[in-house]
């Protein structure tokens, strides 16, 4: 008697049949659509939002890949291809923040620097943390425009300070989830945003030095009070 799960074909048979059907399906479709459809404005708008989402997601994927290499940051010049959206807040300055789902996308509009990024350092660190390594993360022509410094304690907790010129055409993403709190703050009188998880995982404090044209980001698992103390101690290196 035939069982319900008794199929007269194997997975290999199905693979071959699926290949034939797939090819037949493709052969039945035109290679060029003439005349091409003119997509509506509403559609283009929805797709632009989707492109913005993918932009943030591609960054997240890149981030996850780079964790093993201790947050290797990649920076490339990119044109602003996506239309800006109505979520943008901020008067015109060297940066603008878009909210896209749980992700915040920062786009920069500062001038191209004529000199390499100056060195900054954290002048106050919580007990046990020491300098670990530093990376000049990319170059725009001859000038270094981004840098990341890592500090580590004996328990191998990491703390990162990243900073970059707010060069036009560059972007940054702060991605979080629904459990993260986002709060506008000031750091030593400079505008910033704190992304904070109550005791769960990594927190990020970003702030913008308009005068120097530099965006800073501090990433750590430490609590908010310590984060501000560290951030406010950031100074040009002696």
């Amino acid at each position, binding site marked *: 008697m035939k069982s*319900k799960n008794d*199929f*007269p*074909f194997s997975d290999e048979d*199905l*693979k*071959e*049949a*699926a*290949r*034939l*059907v*797939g*090819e*037949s*399906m*493709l052969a*039945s*479709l035109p290679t060029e*659509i003439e005349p091409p*459809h003119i*997509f*509506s404005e*509403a*559609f283009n708008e*929805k*797709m632009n939002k*989707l*492109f913005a*989402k*993918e*932009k943030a*997601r*591609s*960054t997240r994927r*890149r*981030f996850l890949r780079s964790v093993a290499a201790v947050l290797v*940051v*990649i*920076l*490339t010049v*990119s044109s602003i*291809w996506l239309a800006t959206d109505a979520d943008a807040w901020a008067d015109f300055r060297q940066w603008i923040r878009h909210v896209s789902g749980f992700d915040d996308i920062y786009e920069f509009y500062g001038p191209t620097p004529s000199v390499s990024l100056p060195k900054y350092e954290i002048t106050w660190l919580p007990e046990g943390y020491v300098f670990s390594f530093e990376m000049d993360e*990319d170059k725009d022509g001859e000038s270094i425009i981004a840098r990341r410094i890592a500090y580590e304690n004996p328990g191998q907790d990491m703390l990162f300070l*990243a900073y*970059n010129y707010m060069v036009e055409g560059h*972007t*940054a*993403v*702060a991605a*979080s989830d629904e*459990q*993260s709190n986002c709060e506008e703050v000031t750091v030593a009188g400079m505008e910033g945003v704190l*992304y904070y*998880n109550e005791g769960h*995982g990594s927190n*990020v404090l*970003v702030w913008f030095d308009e005068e120097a044209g530099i965006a800073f*980001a501090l*990433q750590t698992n430490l609590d908010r009070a310590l984060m501000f103390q560290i951030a406010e101690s950031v100074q040009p290196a002696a």
Partner: protein
Amino acid sequence: MLIYLQMIESEEDRALFEQLYLEYRQLMFYTAKRILHNDQDAEDAVHQAFLSLIENLNKLSDIKCPKTRAFCVVIVENKAIDILRSKKYISQEEFQEATCGIEIPLPGGNGLADALAKIPARYREALLLHFYVGYTTHEMEKQLGLTRSAVLKLMWRAKLALREQLEKDGTIE
């Protein structure tokens, strides 16, 4: 829990999605319109398809290969059928049994392939995604917006439908 700030962006990551869009949006619209017969609904289906495609973008490496092309067609067909179903207000199960996708010429010379081309589009899509495009059932969950058990049930029903079609065609007794 994930929160970070990182400089972006990779040209190749962004380029992949952009290329996919530019390469297939017309074909996807054409496919959707064959099912929906309406520009606005067809655009909705294309948009829904790209929302799904974005979930497994890392699976796609060669934009112009036949499998990617087939994948885009299958996904947009699936979304177009969803839209059709939502407008007809009938259940998912009833709709699965209906043949309402694009018509596929019978490959010929292979009874199983011919039967696969004839079964309801929902079942054909599932089998094509898994056995031709190479998606795992887990990846299909995301693409089709279904739970794991729903995907497994769909695959099982698809095989049943295929067996019934083989019997109907006289390929098996």
